[in-house]
């Protein structure tokens, strides 16, 4: 089953202005984990906005779950480089937020608040945040905030998770920890993931398929399937095998720079 599909999509933010992305066609299978990499300013984030329906393509069509995207999508989880947790809510309440908005949880909220809270606590415990439920975001470290942010993106069980450089601001060790955590969550209860990043190691480690975008306007220049069994271990990132894959992606980016 296909979850996301781009058909020759182009987008210019201003009418007649320069294209942010041009002629992109790709398709993401259900429960596939894809990564989009490219130099900064290549329209990676634009791609996310198109999928979530926050912007409309100038040309071409975007389909999510077999239906053409028209207006903001209902059931997408999103996480960004900044955790965007609400500072006036505790960690638990932050994770509860989607349940207060997305149906059918929204109308069940009053009667099932306890059950929903338990569910949030479970998810927080699974990402190693047990005991931090009642802390406020500023009391958490950057990595913990990002874990909470991913919990918030997943609590309403979206079919599609969109990640826009979610680990971009973290140190190398925390980053690797979170890769493992994300992979575990994804394997336990699969969902489709679109990960936008400029970290080639991250893309290679996590994704089934990596797409390389060129710069201004963003065009697809390469598609690479990563054939590595799951669950992938961090040790794998130190093998020649892994290095070869990363290197190959790097070559594509290098070529973009020269041209």
């Amino acid at each position, binding site marked *: 089953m296909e979850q996301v599909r781009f058909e020759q999509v182009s987008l210019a933010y201003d009418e007649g202005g320069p294209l942010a992305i041009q002629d992109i066609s790709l398709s993401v299978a259900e429960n596939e984990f894809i990564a989009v990499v490219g130099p900064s300013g290549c329209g990676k984030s634009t791609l996310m*906005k198109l999928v*979530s*329906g*926050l912007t409309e393509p100038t040309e071409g069509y975007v389909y999510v779950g077999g239906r053409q995207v028209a207006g*903001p*999508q*209902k*059931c*997408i*989880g*999103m996480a*960004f480089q*900044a955790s*965007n947790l*609400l*500072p*006036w809510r505790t960690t638990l309440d932050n994770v509860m*937020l*989607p349940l*207060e*908005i*997305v*149906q059918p949880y929204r109308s069940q909220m009053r009667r099932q608040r306890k059950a929903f809270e338990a569910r949030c606590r479970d998810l927080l415990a699974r990402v190693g945040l047990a005991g931090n439920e009642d802390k*406020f975001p*500023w009391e958490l470290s950057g990595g913990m905030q990002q874990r909470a942010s991913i919990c*918030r993106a997943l609590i*309403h069980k979206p079919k599609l998770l*969109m990640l826009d450089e979610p680990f971009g601001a973290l140190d190398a060790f925390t980053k690797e920890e979170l890769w493992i955590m994300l992979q575990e969550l994804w394997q336990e209860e699969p969902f489709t993931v679109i990960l936008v990043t400029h970290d080639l190691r991250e893309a290679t480690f996590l994704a089934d398929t990596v797409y390389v975008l060129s710069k201004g306007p963003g065009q697809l220049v390469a598609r690479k399937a990563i054939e590595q069994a799951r669950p992938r271990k961090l040790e794998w990132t130190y093998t020649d095998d892994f290095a070869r894959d990363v290197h190959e992606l790097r070559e594509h980016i290098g070529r973009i720079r020269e041209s």
Partner: protein
Amino acid sequence: MAISKRKKFLVKHASWLLMIVLLVFWEFICRALQVPQFLFPAPTAVLEAGIARWEIISMHALQTLYTTLVGFAIAVAFGLLVGMAVGSSPLVYRALYPMMVGFNSIPKVAFVPVLVVWFGIGTVPAILTAFLISFFPVLVNVATGLSTLEPELEDVLRSMGASKLDILRKVGLPRTMPYFFASLKVAITLAFVGSVISETVASNLGIGYLMMAASSSMDMALVFAGLIVIGAMGVGMYELFALTEKRFTGWANRGSGGVA
């Protein structure tokens, strides 16, 4: 140890100490230079006048407090509603903002005669002046709080299918609360200014009127007593809102816990 304790004491009671020092200085000047009472009464004389005529003063003070609070309440409701409209709609912002700035630049005392023609003298113009002078900071702050909402935050909510109203309720308004409470502190002091101005020009009740009447009979001690009463009411109200602010938006002021 002893030094730090004394310093702590000083910091804690700084405002009271300064006030006492100033009062003593004031008293000293008046006595040393033998300033006549009808020009500049000493604090003791002001206190005397205040105690001797506390019934009159409190009657007028209550009137001023009443008009101020009513005007302020209208200003908060109005500022909140219009601020929400201005902050969430670029169209309303474009249309309304220049006019509001223009209106706010008009000295409100110039407006009082108009109000008097429309509503007669007394309570109504005082309430309206208090309202007119104090709604602007509320409006501006609410609008600013709403319009500076991080786009990513909005995207997160929109991608869940949240409506405009949802975004306003779950993110916009809570995020605006620190701005809102900060504006209340400014607005309440302005509201006092507004009602006293109006009472001075067109009323036979209220502290403004009392001071006007007292100064025309050269009763300076009473004028000063009135001034001090207004100041005290202003500080009291300010502190009340500062306290509410702390209670409701503690998350926004977490850094200053050590100072307070």
